């Protein structure tokens, strides 16, 4: 049911881990459904310089996470936000129909991480503003 390519990515996933002091964190899914994906990103000059994942889930979920992290590293935030599950699927090649949702989870986790980054930046900006007023 899984292609050799998907199995290879699953067996040797890249970008596993959690970035300490990440600029953005995105977590989607729940254990009841069987998939949890957590993606952390590091941003410099509007560019994602690093991305790491931790995933609880099936072969496709782990492989999608690995591919998604690889796709957004080196991209601007806008480029990463525009990424959809289609690009993840293109890299993975063929996946069983009932596993396509795993690539969607990866898209959602990235979007959440970017949103989180923006929220953190706004918070930081407000904090700086306050300090300046003082």
């Amino acid at each position, binding site marked *: 049911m899984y292609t050799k390519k998907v199995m290879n990515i*699953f*067996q040797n996933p890249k970008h*596993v881990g959690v970035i300490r002091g990440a600029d953005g964190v995105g977590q989607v899914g729940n*254990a009841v459904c069987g998939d*949890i994906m957590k993606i952390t990103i590091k941003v410099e000059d509007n560019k994602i310089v690093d991305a790491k994942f*931790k*995933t*609880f889930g*099936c*072969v496709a979920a782990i492989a999608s996470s690995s591919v998604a992290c690889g796709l957004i590293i080196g991209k601007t935030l806008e480029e990463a936000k525009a990424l959809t599950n289609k690009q993840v699927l293109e890299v993975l090649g063929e996946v069983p129909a009932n596993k396509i949702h795993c690539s969607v989870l990866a898209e959602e986790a990235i979007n959440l991480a970017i949103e989180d980054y923006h929220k953190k930046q706004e918070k930081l900006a407000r904090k700086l503003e306050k300090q300046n007023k003082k």
Partner: protein
Amino acid sequence: MRRVYLDNAATTYVSNEVLTEMLPIFNTTYGNPSSLHGFGRDAMAELDKARDRIAKAINCKPTEIYFTSGGTEANNWALIGLAMANRNKGNHIITSQIEHHSVLDSCKYLETQGFRVTYLPVDECGLVSIADLLHYLDQDTILVSIIGANNEIGTIQNIETIARICHEKNAIFHTDCVQALGAINLDVVGMDIDAMSISGHKVYGPKGIGALYLKSGIKINNLIHGGNQERGKRGGTNNVVGAVGMGKAVEIAVRDMSINNKKLRNMREFFISELNKRFTNFKINGHPAQKLPGLVNVSFEFIEGESILMMLDLAGIAVSTGSACSSNSLEQSHVLKAIGLPAEIGQGSIRISFGKSTTKDEVVYTLDQLEIIVKKLRDISPLTTKRSK
């Protein structure tokens, strides 16, 4: 690459003794048992011999054995055939929540035909409560179907007690004993069973053959129409090769039951004791004692079953998942749900089923690989905390 097969509850290989009996049926005794000529009579003699062997193994009359295409057909036929034929007596059927899908889906079909079906809950070990059975049995109940030994967690039910209670209320008792065959003594007279489904390929026989035992005198409607085979109850040219294989396989399964069970039990105890030594945060599912000797259903926390299965597969080891995720459904296994296992723990379940040729060396290799795999997946999982490592 080394290959280790630990999925004997899914199917087994055909043993040499069985294969030897089957081979001449393909090209020597190949007649159609329904034919009147010598070729046909020879084939019929083989079919009768197979029927006799199965009858002897479960202590019934040969005329009470009906060959089918497998356990699924036997279950479909028992549920649908018995319900339809006995509809004049009542409209209620009782089964359990941990049946094989061939029973559950037949019940769902019967609901669409106007029958009322009660799906009995089970306790955390997977046992049907006798009190529940008594509570739901009523004048309207015509049929009770309870799985003898569960295929996912291995729990063995108190079949004799259930049968006795059903008969006190005049309900027909059917049991799916596809997994129980060869693991427990199935004496249909002593246990007072009315109908029982069995299959060939779980006991080192071929796939595509099963049987329904039906006590004489009990009415059943046909499921497969078109022919006088199986005393007019099941049409279709007999699968003589399959029947011969199943006959021999069942004979051996009963003959070697105590030796096999002892071996399998030792293997399981060794495996579980090693799990306790090597792992933390896991749970063994099913009944602690009343269970199939060669089956272990284990849940590893923080990781997902399909990933464990596929990593084991990469190491050449075959197991199956307790969760239904790999079988094209994202829902949790109905059995693990019924025993009240929380979904997040149920997701990390695998079923390991040893066979009569499994070696200790293979079990050690599996444990070694499992150790590496569980650690690897827990390193990837966001649920793993430092403490739980």
